[in-house]
């Protein structure tokens, strides 16, 4: 690990300013992903700005009947919150399907959104990777691609976003709130928060340098059966091959977002009009434009069948 200066920020604006003024600075909250990457020298910040004292650890009701989740709310606390369990069960389910108890105790809401891909070529510093070194090339393309993206990929990158939580946030139409070094705030719909890789896979989110996430807001509850189906190689403590976050209503209408298939949580609102006609009809629009390899083409079948299973469960 490279040496770094450590400082604790007292206010969100102070934290944002500290990171904005130093191109080699990074925020640290839970640290479960960042420190792992620092040990491997994939991340080499020279200044860490600890944001744990910023008091962004509350879950509060919003005026329009939703919930505002502080950036520092730990994954365990968010999943266990009685309001979330009752009104946003898909979010609890997604969180509980991710990582381990130890990691969820440390990992934060904002940090979960900002975690990096688990593409093995991103982790292997001996292999070229456009995320680690823009322009170096992508070792995954033509490599071992069973776990890689099948939607929204580019010639530069076929990595997936590993978060379960973000998939639930996407199906709930969550909004990411941020503050910038000058104190200006903005609200970014989670749909626009993560970027597709395109020619710049190293730029993963809509955040500007130094911009700090302060909260994630959920709109008022969406009625219906909430579920999160995660398909993985182990029964617990593994990343998704495919995951399906669903909110399904008795009349057959509903929403669906996919994890494990793209560089961001994958949702196609237009495809949801086909919900009453079943998973196959939805999959046609949801998975349109997929680009697969021999090793990961199974993800399309798996996504459709996982959605079908979720629909069957909601009907029973």
């Amino acid at each position: 690990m490279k040496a770094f200066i450590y400082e604790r920020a007292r206010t969100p604006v102070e934290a944002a300013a500290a990171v904005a003024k130093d191109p080699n600075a990074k925020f640290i909250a839970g640290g479960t992903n960042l420190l792992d990457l620092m040990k491997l020298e994939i991340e080499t910040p020279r200044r860490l700005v600890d944001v744990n004292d910023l008091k962004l650890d509350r879950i509060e009701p919003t005026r329009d009947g939703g919930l505002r989740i502080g950036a520092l709310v730990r994954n365990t606390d968010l999943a266990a919150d009685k309001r979330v369990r009752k009104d946003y069960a898909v979010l609890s389910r997604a969180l509980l399907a991710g990582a381990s108890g130890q990691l969820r105790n440390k990992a934060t809401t904002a940090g979960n959104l900002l975690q990096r891909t688990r593409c093995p070529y991103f982790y292997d510093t001996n292999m070229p990777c456009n995320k680690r070194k823009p322009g170096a090339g992508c070792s995954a393309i033509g490599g071992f691609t069973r776990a890689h993206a099948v939607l929204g990929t580019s010639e530069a990158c076929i990595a997936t976003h590993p978060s379960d939580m973000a998939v639930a946030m996407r199906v709930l139409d969550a909004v990411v709130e941020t503050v910038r070094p000058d104190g200006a705030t903005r609200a970014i719909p989670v749909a626009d928060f993560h970027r597709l890789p395109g020619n710049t896979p190293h730029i993963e989110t809509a955040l500007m340098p130094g911009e700090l996430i302060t909260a994630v807001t959920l709109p008022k509850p969406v009625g219906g059966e909430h579920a999160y189906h995660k398909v993985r190689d182990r029964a617990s403590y593994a990343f998704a091959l495919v995951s399906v976050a669903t909110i399904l209503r008795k009349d057959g209408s509903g929403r669906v977002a996919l994890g494990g298939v793209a560089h961001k949580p994958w949702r196609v609102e237009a495809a949801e009009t086909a919900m009453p006609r079943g998973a196959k009809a939805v999959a046609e629009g949801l998975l349109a434009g997929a680009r697969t390899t021999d090793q990961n083409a199974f993800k399309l079948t798996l996504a459709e069948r996982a959605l079908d299973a979720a629909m069957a469960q909601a009907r029973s």
Partner: protein
Amino acid sequence: MAKSEDLSLSRRDLMAATAASAAISGAPGVAGAAPSDAPSVVEVSLEVNGQKRPLKLDTRTTLLDALREHLKLTGTKKGCDHGQCGACTVIVEGRRINSCLTLAVMHDGDKVTTIEGLGTPEKLHPLQAAFVKHDGYQCGYCTPGQICSAKAVLDEIKAGVPSHVTIDLTEDPRLTEAELRERMSGNICRCGAYSNIVEAIGDVAGGLA
């Protein structure tokens, strides 16, 4: 004449001494590097097993390395050092975490409980006694992490924290084998003592539902 303490220098002390001299011999390289490469040293105070432990640490020191290398509390084990195996699990401010994936400097003033703080060879913690009784280990390397994790798991269930296998999210979770297996999945045991570990934890909890 050498004192008896010198003669009883343990393998562990010897390894620590060797590591220290290696660090000193490595120092000139560090000194010659650009200022930004120089280690940053800070003061931090941990409350470990009820005792205040002030330390001067390189900011890079993980909580795990602070415990093992600086405080010589080697009960907490380093397995993968990447948060994948759970051998380094300790309880910080009442919650289990992977001590390898957090910096000591982030825990100034925090209460840390390690396996040394749960029980002693003379007075075992009920979980330690149950692991012995149920053969909840073979090589024992993952055991301190398993036991710290298990203690926190029982507290989490008591506090009503749900898990991936909790059937009804609106109800408090029940103490079942499935719940224990899911909640302990962040602790890997390569000897495969899992079923005995579940029995040991269930025994301490007063039986499974």
